[in-house]
Each structure stands twice: as structure tokens, then as C-alpha cells.
């Protein structure tokens, strides 16, 4: 995983609550055995007017003009602003893969579903939880005539939103550490192999049927 770098980005406002992972990346694209290439099928059923199939070239597909992702005003947006409980439903990591593959680097919402949140962090995608009132304000700004830009400073835990000023963000310290250093947490865990072996020995004495 690459270390998370601070950046200035454009906000895409997706004004829906409970956006589920089936909507983020529909099931037919989960047949892939690769980790990349999901971007063109991000929000497939909302984004296109036809039915998407895996392996299809999406460049000529009819776009849904009413879906915000297709609004030219937000071209190049890499910060997704959305409503509560984003990423609910299935545990498919294809959801953050698709968001990252499309170019999103930050997600802002009043809340995220637990498994999705975990999967996002593992892929260097930063989920930021903000109070509902602040999210409302950002929606107001992001849906104006000009797109909203935000400076994301993960190192100092703050956002600077144009027209709104500084917003402090709160991230789990371990997640913060992993994101800014781009850590591979399997490698990290393997440094504790002795602790794991000691645990197994202890546990086998207490609950031998687990290791039978």
C-alpha cells in the first residue's frame, strides 16, 4: 500500500443514505479474479442506462445523465461526499477497489458500515466521519454553481474546505499510522509470530479440541 499523501481534491456530492455495496459494485463484476479494473463499473446500475456485463468495454455505453457521477461539473472529483451508513451490506472488498480504481481517495459521510470502513482503510482509501450538520453544510457548498474543493491534510488531521474553513477530523490512531506510512499489516502481524505461537500453545492446553 502506498503512503497517503495530502492533496487538494474536488468533491462529488452523492445525496443518498444507506448506499449499499451492491450499488457501489453490482454482483456480476465480482466474478473477476483480479484486484483491479473495477472503476468503469463503479455504481454501474445508476451510472449507465443499459445492463452492464463483466468484461465489456464501458466507453461506448449510454450514460445516465441524471446521475451525479456523470455531471461534467464534477469531472476529476476524488472526494466522495455522501450520507449516513455508506457501504452497508455485503463485505465485498470490490467496493473500495472500485472507488479507488475510479480515482476516489477520500470518502466523507456521517457514518460508514463497519466492514466497508475496514476494507477502505486496507486499500488506502480514507473514510472520514463528520457530524451530520457539517455534512449538510458541505452538501450545500458542493451543490452550488462551482464544485467544492477541499484540502485534505491527513498528517495534521484536518480538512480545509473552500468557503467553510478548517474542519478537524478524527481517525483511529492505528489506522492513521497505517495510512500515512502505507503499512502492509500482514507483514506487521508476522513480526509477532512468536506471540501467536505462544498463544496457540496456551490455548491448546485450555481448549485442546480446537487443535484436534
Amino acid at each position, binding site marked *: 500500500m502506498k503512503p497517503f499523501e495530502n492533496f487538494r481534491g474536488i468533491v462529488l456530492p452523492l445525496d*443518498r443514505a444507506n448506499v449499499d455495496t*451492491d450499488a457501489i459494485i453490482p454482483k456480476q463484476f465480482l466474478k473477476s479474479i483480479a484486484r483491479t479494473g473495477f472503476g468503469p463499473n463503479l455504481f454501474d446500475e445508476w451510472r449507465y442506462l443499459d445492463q452492464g456485463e463483466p468484461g465489456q468495454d464501458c466507453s461506448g455505453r449510454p450514460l445516465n445523465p441524471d446521475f451525479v457521477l456523470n455531471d461534467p461539473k464534477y469531472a476529476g472529483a476524488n472526494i466522495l461526499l455522501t450520507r449516513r451508513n455508506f457501504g452497508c451490506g455485503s463485505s465485498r472488498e470490490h467496493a473500495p477497489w472500485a472507488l479507488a480504481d475510479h480515482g476516489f481517495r477520500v470518502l466523507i459521510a456521517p457514518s460508514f458500515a*463497519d*466492514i466497508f470502513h*475496514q*476494507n477502505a482503510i486496507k486499500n488506502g482509501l480514507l473514510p472520514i466521519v463528520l457530524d451530520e450538520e457539517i455534512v449538510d453544510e458541505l452538501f450545500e457548498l458542493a451543490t452550488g454553481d462551482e464544485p467544492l474543493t477541499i484540502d485534505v491534510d491527513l498528517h495534521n488531521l484536518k480538512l480545509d474546505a473552500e468557503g467553510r474553513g478548517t474542519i478537524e477530523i478524527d481517525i483511529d490512531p492505528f489506522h492513521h499510522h497505517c495510512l500515512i506510512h502505507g503499512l502492509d499489516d*500482514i507483514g506487521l502481524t508476522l513480526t*509477532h509470530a512468536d*506471540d501467536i505461537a505462544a498463544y496457540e500453545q496456551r490455548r491448546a492446553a485450555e481448549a485442546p*479440541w480446537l487443535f484436534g
Partner: protein
Amino acid sequence: MATPRTLYDKIWDAHVVRTDEHGTSLMYIDRQLVHEVTSPQAFEGLRLAGREPRWPEANLAVPDHNVPTTDRHLGIADPISRLQVETLEANCREFGIQLFDMGDKRQGIVHVVGPEEGFTQPGMTIVCGDSHTSTHGAFGALAFGVGTSEVEHVLATQCLLQKKSKSMLVSVDGELGRGVTAKDIVLAIIGEIGTAGGTGHVIEYAGDAIRALSMEGRMTVCNMSIEAGARAGIIGIDEKTVEYVRGRPMAPQGELFEQAAEYWLGLNSDPGAEYDRVVHIDAASIRPQVTWGTSPEMVLPVDGAVPDPAEIADPVKAGSYRHALAYMGLEPGTPLAQIALDKVFIGSCTNGRIEDLRAAAEVARGRKVASSIKLAMVVPGSGLVKEQAEAEGLDKVFLEAGFEWREPGCSMCLAMNADRLEPGERCASTSNRNFEGRQGQGGRTHLVSPAMAAAAAIHGRFVDVREV
């Protein structure tokens, strides 16, 4: 005296390998279930890093999402689906992981197979790259869904990095009415606490109505914990739990089983243990449930009517209701019992077990599927469930009534195989998610219990199963 602990506290404490300065723990994982959709990239990750599974025997793999439910002997027609299943087979061979392949009669949905084989045991930590792993909590195990990176992490290290969740007790007090099932309990709970109500929590289900459920019923309740936002649901261990596990192929045997059973029964929540949130539900007040929208929280009793977004004060929620009604093609005020259906699906990790098929067959026995129903299908949760149902003659009951009797798999719960809804088709489904497009692009899903689904097939619309 020691502080009273919950079942979750006890399992957590027994599985912490170490805790770092940030309060993140390395948690030991006892078992992992593996299926074809969320594992290929995990195995590829191991290969790229030159890593081996730490404990191959702690994993059990079975293809379920992509498998066809008809003409099994012909294999998988869709080449992309076929490649994914073949990739699972190749990975299991390469890394020494036990696999029940498509031709094995033990093949089925991971969450049906694990308990059936005794792979799932009380007190364990169990994960799978699938959100419905919460099912296994019915055994008093801490079981939750993980993403593919975590599947790889568990393969490589037998551990996961975790922070302890908050705890919620949902007590379903008193006795259920006739015709009301585990599915109705869990839908009613989701209706009450909302689809994000359990976020950040492990839900422990308790109360007389939960104790009275069979293991199958408890699995149905725990299965849909994720639909309430909780990664894990858990139920205390009792004699029913122990007797269900006893004698199963992968369960401990003989003296070791007795030792295990004594340990398991000691894991239950202590009297006076504290929860971050407690919810009480009166079992007698629960009626057969039907979802009307595109989130499992959009649910009402069958005698209810489609709600009016104009009466919802919260603008975000009102917006969700409007989207849902437009997608579902429903008008506010329509009685749920007037909603006509095109298809009926009985199956899934929520309701694809023997008890579910018995309940549906009881309603279907001697009756006919309405002529307006294009397809009514029954998909057993596993090959062993299918075998048992056939031994009881349930297949004949369904076939005579006009249902199709299929091979086991996830099927139209998520429509990754050929079983799916066409745009605009409306389905009564015993599965777990009514999300847009879940059962096929443009498809409209209503979640119900197996008995309610069978009754809907017979009448061509929703009916109150208590009046059938």
C-alpha cells in the same frame, strides 16, 4: 468477585494474542470459511508475497455464489463464473485447503455447510469473506464477515487486527404467535433499530422467544445481524446448541466433546453483565413481516400499507423512501396484501435449511402455485439439506404444487449465477437483502419468511400466513 462479563467479552478475552499501544488487538481466529468470490485475490496475495497459510486445516472451502442450480452435470456455462470456481479449486489444491467441490453432496452455501459439518463450534472465532458469517453466532461463536485483505491476513497469520466492539442486548420477551417465525423476529428487530442500528456493536439475542427457537431459527436471526449494521450477532449456548453439534463430522468426539461442552456452557453471559445498549421487543406483538422498500429496515407487518414519504419528517429518510417507492413501483397507502408477485424464491443462507423447507412445504402441501406466478423456486441450502428434504418427501410436495426443485447454492439471493429477476419483476424472497438490483438489475425484492413466501406463491400476492 470478578466483574460480570458477556459472552462476547469472554470470547474476546480468550482470543486476544496481544494489544498494542493504540488499543488495537491481535485476535486469534479459530476457523475460516472460504468461497470462490472473495478469495482469489487473497490467495494471489499470498503467492505474490511468497507466504503460506499458517494453518491450512483451519479453513474449509466451498463454491456457492456462482454454482448453477440446474443441470449440475453440465458444469458452469458462464466462462467467467466457471473460471472463478476453478480458481478456488486450484488454490485449495495448491495451499492444502479442504474443499467440497460442486460434485460433493456436502456442497452448499458456506453458512449452511459450516454448522452442518460441525466445523462451526461454540466459543470459536470464525470469519469468512462474506457478511452473512454472522449466522454462526447462533452457536455462541464470535463470527463475522471480512473483506478479501482480511481473508489473506487470516490465511497468513491465523489472526486479525481488531478493536473491541460495543455490545447490544436485544431481548425478545415472551412467546411468538402462531405462524410467526425467526425471520419475522429479525425483520421486526431491524424495523425497530434500523439498518445502521447495530453499527459498531455485537448484538446478543436473548429472551424467551430466542431460547425457544431451534438452532435453524437462531441461525436465521443471527444471519441478518449485518442487515441491522452489526458485524456479529450471538446467542447464548444451551443444551440445544450442544446437541446440535454432537456427533457432527468435524466436531470433537468422545471425551473431548464432553470436555468441550462443559467449557462451552460456561461461556454464557454472567448475570449482571452490562451492555452498551439494551432493546426489548415483545414477541407477542410481532406479526408476519414483509419488506416494501430497498433496505431491510423498510419493513412492516403484512396487514400494513406502503408508507407515505410526505409524512416522514427527516428529509434524508423521506428522500430514501421516495427513491425506494419509485424503484419498487409502489404507491403510498397500498395495502401490502394487494401487492401481486411475479416470482418466488425460497432458499439462501437465511432460510435454506431443512426447517425452512418444512415450513414452506406445509403451506404448499396439496395446493397449487397461482397461474400468475412465472417462477416459484426452492433452492436447498446444501446437498445434505436437499437429501434430507427428499427423504421426507418435501421435493414431491413442492413439485406437485408447481414449484421448481433445484440444486444447492446462493442462487437468486444475489443472482450471480443464472437465477435472476428481469427488470421490473417482483419477487417474494426468503433471502436477506432487498437492495436495488440485488436479485437482478431492476428486480424488486420483498423479504419474507419461508411460510409467507410459499403462501404468496399459492395466492399470487402477499397473504397473512396465519389466515391460510
